[in-house]
């Protein structure tokens, strides 16, 4: 089968899955596309091991910590902007106040976000995103997806990231080289921050694919419920 064929089939599957929504039942209710996702996972790890991870490791080794921290802060400031939007969409005025305060402080007085003065001042990060907002609104997470070079997500969370991808100020920079450099740096920063977690997963897991899926879904559920998730149905004893 050609790659084109494969893509078409994937698209068809995605269409069906969006129509069917959360109706799929059975043991793989959360991950109805497991075979496809596992292929994606293998493609992902192959590219990652060969290219992305070594680049991220070199970045960590060659770049002084204060510079990497400034990079993390800069993109964290953009996260805070989106967190503010999502605080508002979720009707959380306290968090919205904090996140707006952070953005104003760090953009205005922290060199466009390179220095995180707001954290030093004790203003907490909200950490909300569109996927969480959809969850708070009662939208089902939908099928689990593993996307090469992006990682674990769900239809709901992935849709949130698509919105963000279009809305992020970086995407609207007119100078193409600057824009692409910043987008690349953003990804590099994210990948570098995941290096430690990744080595933990490889040490802990019998089957990293399953381990990552369970951890991702648990984590997202916890975030949607703001750290107070109701107990899941017990299967013990």
């Amino acid at each position, binding site marked *: 089968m050609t790659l084109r064929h494969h893509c078409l089939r994937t698209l068809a599957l995605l269409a069906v899955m969006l129509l069917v929504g959360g109706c799929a039942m059975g043991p793989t209710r959360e991950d109805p596309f497991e075979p496809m996702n596992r292929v994606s996972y293998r493609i992902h790890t192959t590219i990652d091991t060969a290219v992305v991870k070594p680049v991220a490791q070199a970045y960590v080794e060659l770049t002084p910590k204060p510079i990497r*921290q400034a990079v993390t802060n800069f993109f964290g400031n953009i996260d805070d902007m989106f967190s503010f939007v999502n605080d508002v969409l979720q009707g959380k005025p306290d968090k919205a106040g904090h996140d707006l305060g952070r953005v104003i402080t760090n953009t205005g007085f922290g060199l466009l976000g390179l220095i995180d003065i707001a954290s030093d001042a004790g203003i907490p990060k909200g950490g909300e995103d569109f996927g969480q907002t959809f969850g708070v609104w009662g939208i089902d997470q939908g099928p689990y997806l593993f996307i090469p070079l992006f990682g674990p997500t769900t239809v709901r969370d992935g849709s949130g990231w698509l919105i963000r991808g279009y809305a992020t100020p970086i995407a609207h920079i007119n100078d193409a080289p600057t824009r692409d450099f910043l987008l690349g740096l953003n990804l590099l920063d994210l990948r570098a921050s995941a290096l430690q977690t990744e080595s933990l997963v490889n040490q*802990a897991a019998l089957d990293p694919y399953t381990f990552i899926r369970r*951890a991702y879904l648990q984590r997202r559920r916890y975030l949607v419920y703001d750290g107070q998730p109701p107990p899941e149905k017990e299967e013990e004893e």
Partner: protein
Amino acid sequence: MSTTPLRVGVVALCAALLALVALPAFAQEAPDALVKRVSQEALDIIKTDARVKAGDKAHIRELIKAKIAPHFDMQRMTALAVGRAWRQATPEQKQRLSDEFESLLIRTYSNALDQYRDQQLDYKPLRVQPDSNEVTVRTEVVRPGQQPVSIDYSMEKTPAGWKAYDVIVGGVSLVTNYRDEFAQQVSQGGIDSLIKALAAKNAAPTQ
């Protein structure tokens, strides 16, 4: 100067007596106090022990097994991770499963220890009925410029003091996170195949 050996003996005796007196006190130690004491001990070891600092993996594993593992109820943790199939396991299989699972957790977290070197832990006040047999002790790792990560311990009262049966890091349960993997392994080849997979994982060189 001549009294030095004697003085050492007296000090040792006093220490031994103190330990005897302290033991029952530890057995009744409140769950949050226990978590705080053990976490603090672990952080002190990371900061001061020369062999830990040098990255001596075997030594780190021994320390975790001696100082931290006794505060966990491995049987219950393994039962939770294995899920439905636990009931069908023979006592011998249960023992082997719990031994291998313990080794896996110790190996994993001995490798992760490095990441906790400069962490600051916050302990949340315990909300619990005085006669309760189950509590959740909540702590938080504070990281500058990032969101804090919660670490919650699910604990139960046993005759040997409070013991943890789950650790939930940032909403991810270390125990139930294994449930899908273990169920998958059991459905493919039964409980013995899960034991074998765990043993193979533990025999593999780290990193």
